[in-house]
């Protein structure tokens, strides 16, 4: 990125303009390109995919009218919501109510600065990448709390309060799980963490030692809770709180919240991929465009796998209660994540360069768990009735 702008300056395209301003404009342009080319379709297609995956699991069809297989449904929805009346309840806070969706949106968008898409595809490889990521995702809670309070609706207030309590609590296990990886990698830069891993699964930090293995599940659970996903979707629990903090929102403002939610799904998957699953690492194929494309593909598939798992979980599980949610966090996940941090630190002392055998053993364990899971899945599928529904007429 910087080299590209430098070369443009050297070729004399921006003569007479201070270089700092050129850099700033270049960053904004890059951000807009990323936003329009990648993030918006990503969140949109994720919303379509979620509806299709859900529909399949629920013996329904799902949206299939707009475009092939309904893949453009998100565009139609977006246009519909843009054309809707801009409604602000008369009792709502006139300043905070319109502002809240944008704060949520900013908190979500800023994460894309440090999420890599490939070996060289990253907006900015910050040396505090992961710390920055944890910081900006925390902005979301401010927006949600603002939305809940400013709506002047009791359901919204309850939803906002639940959300604040939930996100603040679950940041702790998520942060500690990330910390174990920072210990191992010795860097907070996302690209640095990926470069320390290899393409082979046993080189991933997921299998580095037993504690990182646990940390992965802690991170994924906590990230689901931070993203307000089922089974932790209590802030917007539609059967309890009507719609939680989005009760009073409509049109495009409503969409902004869900834009952030669906986009967040990808962020969860991408961060898990960066930290635990070897990121974009591929076997060397000689560099060039092919390797770049391959890296992009690998990263995308790994990240989307976890998006799919999140959808699957949402279609399967009921919702936990507020007190159960808090008990899960503070009684089990926080102590366990501290154990992971201390355990990894001790591991670093015993094996300063990591243990190859431990990695292989953990990889074997992971494969074993996967095999058992798949067998259970096969049992369920064999015993399920996949027909859409029985028609005694035919």
């Amino acid at each position, binding site marked *: 990125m910087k080299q590209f702008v430098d070369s443009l300056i050297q070729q004399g395209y921006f003569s007479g303009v201070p270089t700092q301003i050129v850099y700033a404009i270049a960053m904004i342009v890059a951000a807009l390109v990323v936003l329009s080319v990648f993030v918006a379709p990503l969140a949109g297609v994720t919303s379509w995919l979620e509806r299709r995956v859900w529909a399949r699991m629920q013996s329904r069809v799902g949206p299939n009218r707009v475009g092939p297989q309904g893949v453009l449904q998100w565009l139609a929805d977006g246009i519909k919501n843009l054309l809707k009346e801009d409604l602000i309840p008369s009792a709502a806070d006139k300043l905070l109510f319109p502002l809240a969706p944008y704060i949520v949106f900013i908190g979500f968008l800023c994460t894309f600065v440090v999420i890599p898409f490939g070996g060289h595809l990253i907006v900015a490889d910050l040396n505090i990448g992961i710390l920055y990521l944890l910081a900006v995702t925390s902005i979301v809670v401010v927006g949600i709390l603002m939305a809940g309070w400013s709506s002047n609706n009791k359901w919204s*207030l309850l939803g906002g309060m639940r959300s604040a309590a939930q996100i603040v609590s679950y940041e702790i296990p998520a942060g500690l799980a990330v910390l174990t990886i920072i210990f191992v990698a010795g860097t907070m830069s996302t690209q640095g963490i990926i470069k320390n891993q290899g393409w082979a699964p046993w080189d991933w930090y997921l299998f580095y030692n037993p504690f990182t293995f646990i940390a992965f599940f802690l991170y994924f659970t906590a990230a689901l809770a931070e993203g307000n996903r089922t089974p932790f979707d*209590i802030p917007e*629990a*539609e059967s309890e709180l009507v719609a939680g903090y989005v009760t009073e929102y409509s049109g495009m403002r409503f969409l902004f919240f869900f834009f952030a939610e669906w986009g967040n799904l990808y962020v969860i998957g991408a961060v898990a991929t960066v930290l635990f699953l070897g990121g974009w690492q591929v076997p060397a194929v000689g560099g060039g465009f092919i390797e770049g494309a391959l890296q992009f593909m690998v990263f995308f598939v790994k990240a989307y796998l976890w998006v799919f798992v999140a959808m699957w979980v949402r279609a399967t599980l*009921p919702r936990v209660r507020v007190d159960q949610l808090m008990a899960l966090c503070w009684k089990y996940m926080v102590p366990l994540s501290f154990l992971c941090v201390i355990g990894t630190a001790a591991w670093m002392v015993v094996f300063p360069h990591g243990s190859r055998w431990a990695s292989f053993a953990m990889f074997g364990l992971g494969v074993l768990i996967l095999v058992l899971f798949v067998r259970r899945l096969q049992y369920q599928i064999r015993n399920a*009735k996949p027909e859409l529904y029985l*028609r*005694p007429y035919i």
Partner: protein
Amino acid sequence: MSEAVYPESEVFHTEDMTISVGPQHPSTHGVLRFVVRTDGEVISEALPDVGYLHRSIEKIGEKCTYHGYVPYTDRADYLAAMFANQGFCMAAEKLGATEVTRRGEFCRVIACELNRIASHLISVGTFGQDIGAITPFLHALRERETINDLMEEICGARLTYNYIRIGGVGYDITPQTCDKILVFLDHFDPIIDEYNRLLSYNKIYIERLANVAAITKEDALQYNLVGPNLRASGVKWDIRRDIPYSVYPELEFEVPVGHGEKGTLGDCYDRYWVRIQELQESSKILRQCLKMMPKGPAISKVPRKFKPPAGEVYVRVEAPRGDMGYYVVSDGTEYAYRVRIRTGSFTAMAIIDKLSRGIMVADLIALIASLDVDAPEIDR
């Protein structure tokens, strides 16, 4: 919104919040309202406010002929219209001393038990949805759709059947339909297991329901709970077994009761589990009926001008929401003098105030869902 802190007070000033749950709340199953006073998430009082769906069905009964009133009874509980039909028809038959043909009785039982399965599927499905699991709801509705198809074949309607008439049933169930019902039952029995694997044995689901809003045996009797709600509290009381009507004495079936399956006796999980077991029992009853189905006319000769002699009757049937009673007074004319309907959901509303003290908002939703209240049946 919370008030400002009073500066002169030493203690941090807090106030209870009054929330109106309903009438447009997603999980009140129709138009039903609760005035809930909460301290944060903990409920200190929840008062049910009924009457949003009142349609004067009882008063209409005084202005209609006996035959003409049967379609109105469908609307008393549209999730289980067959039972409302049957209750009124049995009351009219008892007043007029009308015989029901034997085949008619079997057709009634078959239609009713199919309807019970449909109603319980709605009940357990929406239960899952209120707890947050949306997939089981759609799976349950998928099966109910097949029952609707069968019902359409039996009587031409999918929701408000108007099938059971005074003296029998409107249309005979053909042998072809009987075969289709059997095919459906063979398909449906494994579905219950699938449903259990998906929802009933789910850890989160059990955690959410076990030990929540437990109703003791004494409370259940005092508050006049009926049907599955009563049985979940451990009282083995089923109108089909204890005050037998129709051909139920000839059929073999269990009356499932709650045992405190995963928590205390009479908690939300027991109420859920009793309904799941009743699905299996209904399937068993249906199979027996289809086997025992006699030949003969489906409806006996009933005069078009049905004028029962003066008198009064009270007839009870076991509907999916419990004991449904019809009190009909005749003055010897074509029109009933009084019709009153007693429904299970209405009496279930009374206990909500007692149970909801000290539980959380999410538990209140679980409680409402577990009582399987149905707004049209509450208000009539």
